[in-house]
């Protein structure tokens, strides 16, 4: 058995080896109990499509339908297909980022409430639940990324190493961001279920607040410079553009321009996401002592 349920060692002459139960080390404990984490993730993955005929096909059907709707409405009717080269790949490489973010963030926020019976009865590092939601979303993201890569290959995709690293950075940004925000909003959600509705609102805006359906240059033409900087400081925007740079840009004839300072904004986003993760963890730890009694 792992000796991780309690970490704070109490000092004193005759109190050797005594600990205060219930005081864990947060995300570090999640790492220590990664076997349990892996089982929770596997359970979630197994259970999700239980009892459905299509099973895991649903994780292809959903994003493809979503893609088709946007493609017909924006690509065909609004004719973005003509102004943005290889628009299908552009659109899909942005959508996969948004899907990853949405699923991780919204399920992570609800994860504590969903696991209330467990939290109320057994002590375990509660960070496990938002973290496992994020990992499940990541696993769900993989088939979409594969579909995207296959489509890219057919349209002449030959990325260089830097572009591949950009993709990895983009995904890392989204994963860290979603985890930090889930810890923050998830712990508030225990006492105030308003949090999960608020998160749905954020996600509604997130799809449109980043250049997923349109191109950054369209925004650049209209927004003043300072507002454009703020627009680009949004970590989701940076992640979307990094995936554009990795998947879509190599399939065009380079007649398009990527936003300048992409790496700079990518690193800013990485820092922002990491800071938010730390803030999320701190807030989570403050509120955690009340989880078992408030749920």
């Amino acid at each position: 058995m792992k000796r991780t349920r309690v970490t704070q060692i109490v000092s004193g002459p005759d109190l050797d080896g005594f600990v205060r139960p219930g005081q864990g080390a947060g995300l570090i404990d999640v790492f220590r109990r990664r076997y349990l984490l892996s089982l929770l993730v596997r359970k979630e993955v197994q259970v999700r499509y239980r009892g459905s005929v299509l099973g895991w096909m649903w994780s292809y059907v959903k994003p493809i339908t979503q893609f088709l709707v946007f493609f017909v409405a924006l690509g065909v009717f609004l004719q973005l297909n003509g102004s943005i080269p290889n628009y299908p790949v552009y659109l899909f490489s942005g959508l996969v980022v948004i899907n990853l973010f949405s699923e991780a963030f919204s399920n992570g926020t609800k994860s504590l409430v969903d696991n209330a019976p467990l939290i109320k009865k057994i002590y375990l590092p509660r960070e496990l639940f938002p973290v496992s939601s994020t990992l499940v979303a990541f696993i769900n993201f993989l088939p979409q990324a594969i579909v995207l890569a296959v489509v890219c290959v057919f349209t002449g995709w030959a990325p260089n190493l830097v572009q591949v690293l950009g993709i990895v950075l983009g995904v890392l940004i989204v994963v860290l961001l979603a985890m930090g925000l889930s810890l923050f909003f998830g712990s508030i959600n225990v006492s105030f279920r308003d949090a999960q509705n608020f998160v749905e609102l954020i996600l509604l805006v997130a799809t449109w607040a980043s250049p997923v359906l349109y191109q950054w240059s369209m925004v650049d033409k209209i927004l003043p410079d300072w507002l454009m900087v703020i627009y680009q400081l949004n970590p989701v925007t940076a992640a979307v553009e990094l995936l554009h740079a990795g998947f879509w840009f190599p399939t065009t004839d380079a007649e398009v321009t990527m936003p300048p300072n992409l790496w700079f904004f990518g690193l800013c986003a990485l820092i922002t996401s990491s800071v938010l993760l730390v803030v999320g963890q701190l807030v989570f730890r403050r509120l955690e002592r009340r989880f078992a009694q408030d749920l």
Partner: protein
Amino acid sequence: MAIIVTELSKTFLLRHTHSLKESVIAAVRRKPLSSSFNALDEVSFTINTGESVALLGFNGSGKSTLLKLISGVLRPDRGEVLTRGRVAGLIEVGAGFHPDLSGRENIYLNAAILGMSQKEIDSRFDDIVEFSEIAKFIDTEVKHYSSGMFLRLAFSVAIHTEVDILLVDEILSVGDEPFQRKCLAKIRQLHAEGRTLVVVSHDLGMVADLCDRGILIDKGRVVFDGESHEAVVRMRAQ
């Protein structure tokens, strides 16, 4: 010593509001947002390693709350709980079970939740199944189990975790009589091996025989701490 409880108090806030909106409205109208309730009040005792202790008291007296504080599920408001060694709370067996998973998958999940490593589960898996006596159904989804079978499996997992301090809340009533006897024998065996036991049960005769010491709790306060049969007599006299 295994457990030290000093001047432990737990106060629950009974919130009257459940959304930001309600809170704001109540605050504007100067209505109380919550009222408080002392579930445990200045409780102190120490339990030695290898001791077996029955927590006695009527419904709502604070026994489960005390066990949850010892296991770390709840955190004290005042005072302190200290424990030494690995604590496993059989506060409600089967809390980590998922109806859509098979018995086998649930054993792994639940044992990991209770703190076992993969190796430990692998090595104890056969014992767990054997103890539960439901080997035939081990690959069936647990939603198709009868409630007794479900409890058998959950109890087997819990009782096979490696622990120093075993907290048992109201679960000896699981299953049919032969299984109950088997559970009791298993708990006695763990105690004989030197585990510390803290047991809550309303089966007064049974706990008094199982445990050497009884702590009687009434409305969150310790009113008696001594020999277990005497504690039962005191409780009945109340």
